């Protein structure tokens, strides 16, 4: 479908206004919203993600593409079913208790949404209870925790322990990330996954949700 390819290409270039109006045109041509989402917007975002991982483009372009994606999604939203938009899985993310750094976590959220996951962002300074309760109530597949200081990293372990205590560790997987977090530290604390950057976090969630 020509128009869907055009939407994807415009999205890749971060042209948000054009993506919005072409998405509207596609709707006016009676194309199903889900098809526009998957074959236009998400297809474009997939290319952006792949090029980012290959260091062919850099973060600013990813952000512009994400902005264009939101512009298109806004047009589609009223016409999509509740599960259409985020059919790939549900992730609860947040910065752990005591930590207020959220830029890395926000980028992870942007990339996950762009890849079609539903993201419940609890913000920063999130307690273990809040992570676990939200994951249970929302039926999330993954809890993603971010920390930017060595002094706040131990809070990640508390979330993992609480999940175990409540017997939820087999249904809710955990992913950790942030500048001082290493793969070794992640496995030592019992996390199911480790994301070293936002693109890698998407890969990690894909693996965790199978």
């Amino acid at each position, binding site marked *: 479908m020509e128009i869907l390819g055009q939407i994807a290409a415009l999205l890749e270039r971060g042209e948000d206004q054009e993506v919005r109006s072409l998405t509207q045109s596609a709707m006016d041509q009676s194309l199903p919203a889900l098809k526009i989402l998957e074959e236009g917007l998400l297809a474009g975002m997939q290319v952006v993600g792949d090029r980012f991982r290959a260091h062919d483009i*850099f973060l*600013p372009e990813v952000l512009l593409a994400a902005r264009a994606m939101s512009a298109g999604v806004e047009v589609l939203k009223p016409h999509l079913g509740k599960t259409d938009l985020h059919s790939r899985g549900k992730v609860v993310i947040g910065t752990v208790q005591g930590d207020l750094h959220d830029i890395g976590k*926000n980028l992870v959220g942007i990339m996950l949404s762009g890849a079609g996951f539903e993201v419940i962002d609890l913000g920063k300074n999130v307690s273990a209870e809040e992570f676990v309760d939200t994951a249970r109530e929302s039926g999330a597949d993954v809890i993603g925790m971010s920390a930017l*200081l060595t002094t*706040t990293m131990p809070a990640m372990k508390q979330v993992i322990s609480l999940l175990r205590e409540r017997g939820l560790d087999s249904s809710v997987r955990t992913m950790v990330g942030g500048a001082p977090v290493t793969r070794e530290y992640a496995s030592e604390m019992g996390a199911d996954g480790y994301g070293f950057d936002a693109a890698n976090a998407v890969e990690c969630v894909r693996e965790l949700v199978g």
Partner: protein
Amino acid sequence: MRRVVGILPASIVPSEEAVLGAMGVPPGSEQGERVDGLVADALDELRRAACPRGVVTNVTTDEFARIYEGESDNDTPSPLAEIFPRAEELVLFAATLGAPLSERIAALFADGSLALATMLDAAASEAAELAGVHLDGLVLEGARLGGQANQFTRALRYSPGYCGWNLTGQRALFAALGPEEIGVHLTDNCLMEPLKSISGVIVLGPREIHEFTDDYSFCSACPTHDCRRRIKELTQTRP
């Protein structure tokens, strides 16, 4: 001597290349008009919202030895432990860009302006470093005017959380410096609020004292190895 320093917002505005560098864009790579526009918007936001301030105070070598010892959890050996006893002067510092900037970044995120918010965050991170550079210059100039430094003296910052100086060292540093006066507060986890703040010690001395190789036990886990650039810059600056 302790003093609070107002810093002109214009003196902490980073270059477009530096902002893009903070976002992982390699130097010299073409980003296109849209990205350039985004950086320009972020820098405008930064000029409007930043309220940069600093506080500095001189300490003796013995005083600094106690501050550095902190909670006795530094890595040993460490570069700073070897450098500070040889310093001509030691000046504790903290600098911040102020709370309104962090609030502006949060507000942009909240209203969905993710691209601008992220760009502004990166610009602010660079600006916080530039506030530190500004303090280095000020302290060095003051020392030269006061006759405590000569043309060969260099000033370089070291911070808790880097190069073996444990982050918990922030507590002793804060107790000695009192950055609360410029609106910087320390949380129980040694995090400074507002977020775009830095702290540490400015070490004055001949450039040789700052030279070290990055083969300490903690260097392999360091994500940046920024010490290489900092030392190189010192060597390149003329007396």
